[in-house]
């Protein structure tokens, strides 16, 4: 029997317990002199139902892990087992196939030997199904009875049920911590392996990036693993150029929408702007590479910049900036609108014009929210790969000239992980180290941002 069916069974039993407990609570209630219970009947019902379902869920989880093993053991004990290949994959597929037929997931077998096992499988599965069902019912029954016997008119069922609810809430918030931990774990081992091959000092402070995934893996050239140009490229494209576009445009849009535009226009323009963030990045990539980049090159050449190439950090950054306008504008819009009216009134009553009020009072007061929006936007920009690949190429340059080609950390991560290099090569492993460092950096930045925002937040309350 599949775990799904066992769970359905448990739910059915839980429902039965729920109804029984509720009926009992109602009978208490009729019997009590003031018609009042410590908790509502439905809380009694939930209490019993949870006591039935939760233990069963735990059991089913455990059972679905061990039952297949037990079934296989039983099958292997059958006489036909002697014909099986001794070990390995072949044996496993034959068994799998026989099981698929036995459970009805497949019509016929592909490997004739498997036929022999269909019947043993059927029997073993049948047997363990029964065991599973019986134990499930037993556990449900025991849990249900135990909980049921505790019901009394003054039993604080609500408190207990709510404790479980609180535990679930707490559990949900722990998912974030687990995810963080998961990221850490999934990066750290390969990172350590990488640092075993390339000195972290060379990696973190080197200024030349040019790993060759096809080169000899045994003694990598540490001078080719300097990540500074990547981090610089990331910063330059994602955090400087893109922000120079997105912050003024996003902020000005938000200001116009909250302070000047009439509400009807705002209701239309705001969602329209949000579409900008939803356009697939491939589209932006082509737009950047085939429209913006050549235009920038021609413009630069007309100004006399001889070395202008059509791959430039500027093209990638500009287009990326457009893409993240809505992140800035939406968050800024919300936080400007949330500045207390008293601040606005205070400034207007001093005889300030609207723009003076916005620039000198509203924007500073809304700064935490604006910063949060910018942070989201920056992270989106940093994580973006397609636009960079298409418009700024994948060559790592350490340069302050926006007309040169550059690349970013995430582009390299993707390139290394989906390239032709082998996975024990330091070039490929460097992707994990890059990810790890990037992760630590964002963690640090967020730590600082959180502090700053907290401090700011006290400001106007």
């Amino acid at each position, binding site marked *: 029997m599949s775990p799904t069916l066992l769970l359905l069974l448990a739910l059915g039993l839980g429902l039965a317990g729920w109804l029984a407990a509720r009926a009992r609570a109602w009978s208490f209630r009729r019997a009590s002199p003031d018609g009042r219970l410590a908790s509502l009947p439905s809380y009694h019902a939930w209490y019993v139902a949870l006591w039935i379902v939760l233990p069963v869920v735990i059991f089913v989880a455990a059972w679905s892990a061990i039952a297949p093993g037990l079934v296989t053991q039983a099958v292997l004990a059958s006489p036909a087992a002697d014909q099986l290949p001794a070990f390995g994959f072949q044996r496993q597929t034959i068994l799998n196939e026989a099981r698929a037929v036995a459970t009805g997931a497949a019509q016929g077998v592909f490997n004739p030997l498997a036929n022999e096992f269909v019947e043993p499988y059927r029997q073993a599965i049948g047997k363990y199904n029964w065991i599973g069902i019986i134990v499930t019912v037993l556990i449900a029954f025991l849990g249900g009875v135990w909980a049921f016997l505790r019901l009394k008119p003054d039993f604080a069922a609500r408190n207990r049920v709510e404790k479980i609810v609180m535990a679930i809430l707490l559990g949900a918030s722990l998912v974030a911590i687990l995810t963080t931990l998961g990221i850490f774990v999934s990066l750290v081992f390969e990172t350590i392996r990488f640092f075993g091959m390339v000195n972290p000092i060379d990696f973190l402070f080197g200024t030349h990036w040019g790993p060759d995934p096809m080169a000899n893996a045994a003694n990598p050239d540490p001078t080719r693993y300097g990540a500074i140009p990547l981090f610089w490229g990331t910063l330059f494209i994602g955090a400087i150029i893109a922000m120079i576009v997105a912050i003024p445009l996003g902020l000005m849009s938000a200001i116009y929408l909250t302070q000047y535009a009439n509400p009807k226009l705002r209701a239309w323009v705001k969602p329209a702007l949000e579409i900008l963030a939803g356009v697939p990045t491939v589209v932006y990539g082509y737009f950047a590479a085939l429209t913006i980049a050549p235009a920038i090159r021609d413009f630069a050449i007309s100004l006399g910049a001889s070395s202008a190439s059509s791959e430039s950090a500027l093209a990638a950054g500009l287009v990326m900036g457009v893409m993240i306008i809505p992140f800035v504008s939406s968050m800024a819009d919300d936080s400007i609108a949330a500045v*207390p009216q*008293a*601040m*606005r*009134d*205070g*400034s*207007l*009553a*001093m*005889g*300030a*014009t609207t723009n*003076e009020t916005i620039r*000198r*009072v509203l924007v*500073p*007061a809304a700064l935490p929210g604006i910063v949060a929006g910018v942070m989201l936007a920056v992270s989106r920009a940093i994580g973006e790969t397609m636009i960079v690949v298409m418009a700024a190429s994948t060559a790592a340059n350490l340069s302050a000239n926006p007309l040169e080609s550059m690349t970013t950390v995430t582009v390299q991560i993707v390139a290394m992980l989906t390239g032709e290099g082998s996975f024990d090569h330091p070039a490929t492993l460097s992707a994990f180290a890059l990810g790890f460092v990037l992760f630590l950096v964002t963690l640090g930045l967020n730590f600082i941002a959180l502090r700053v925002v907290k401090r700011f937040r*006290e*400001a*106007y*309350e």
Partner: protein
Amino acid sequence: MSARDVSVFYGEKKAIDNVSIDIPTKYVTAFIGPSGCGKSTFLRTLNRMNDTIPSARVEGEIMLDGEDIYRSGMDVVQLRARVGMVFQKPNPFPKSIYENIAYGPKIHGLAESKDELDAVVEKSLRRAGLWEEVKDRLQDSGTALSGGQQQRLCIARAIAVDPEVILMDEPCSALDPIATAKIEELIDDLNGRYAIVIVTHSMQQAARVSQRTAFFHLGKMVEYGRTSDIFTNPLEQRTQDYITGRYG
């Protein structure tokens, strides 16, 4: 400042009904009346702060120096610089104390140099009776002050641009008695230098600080006169009832 047949509407609803009043230039005028009678609404019409409420509409004329402030060419910015306002809840900007005071002079370009600005800030704080308390921490945030100090800061901010009229909408309702006493002292001090209009729900306060009192009820101005007359010898029964606590 004088109002002629002023009515104010919020959408369809008439919140002020045909009020005419002359506000003397060197006295403190108090507006009293039960909650919702339109005191705040009328006060805000005096410096066009109700322009910020989209649904609000004003009829009638309000004259300042012989000019109707609702006439089409009126410069609202200048008007508000001339008619300052202090709100019920102290609302200092989340900036330093210095910046709070310097804000008005800066945007209006009233000080030509840093020294001049310093002088304006000091003078305003002194007049607001706050100088001694804050002179050592002008760079602290204005929001770090106590409620009473914040309210005096807001008053200092208003007088920093040298207005002709100061409007105060229940400036003490969020304050404790000691802070309230300080503000009242300050109003006494400023009296004679500026025209002051104060809205209050406390008749005691009106009696203490004002020379003229206007009693509003359900959007109408019921009675207006010398404070002493209103409190001891009101002409209208409603005023009498209100003052003696029959309602409100």
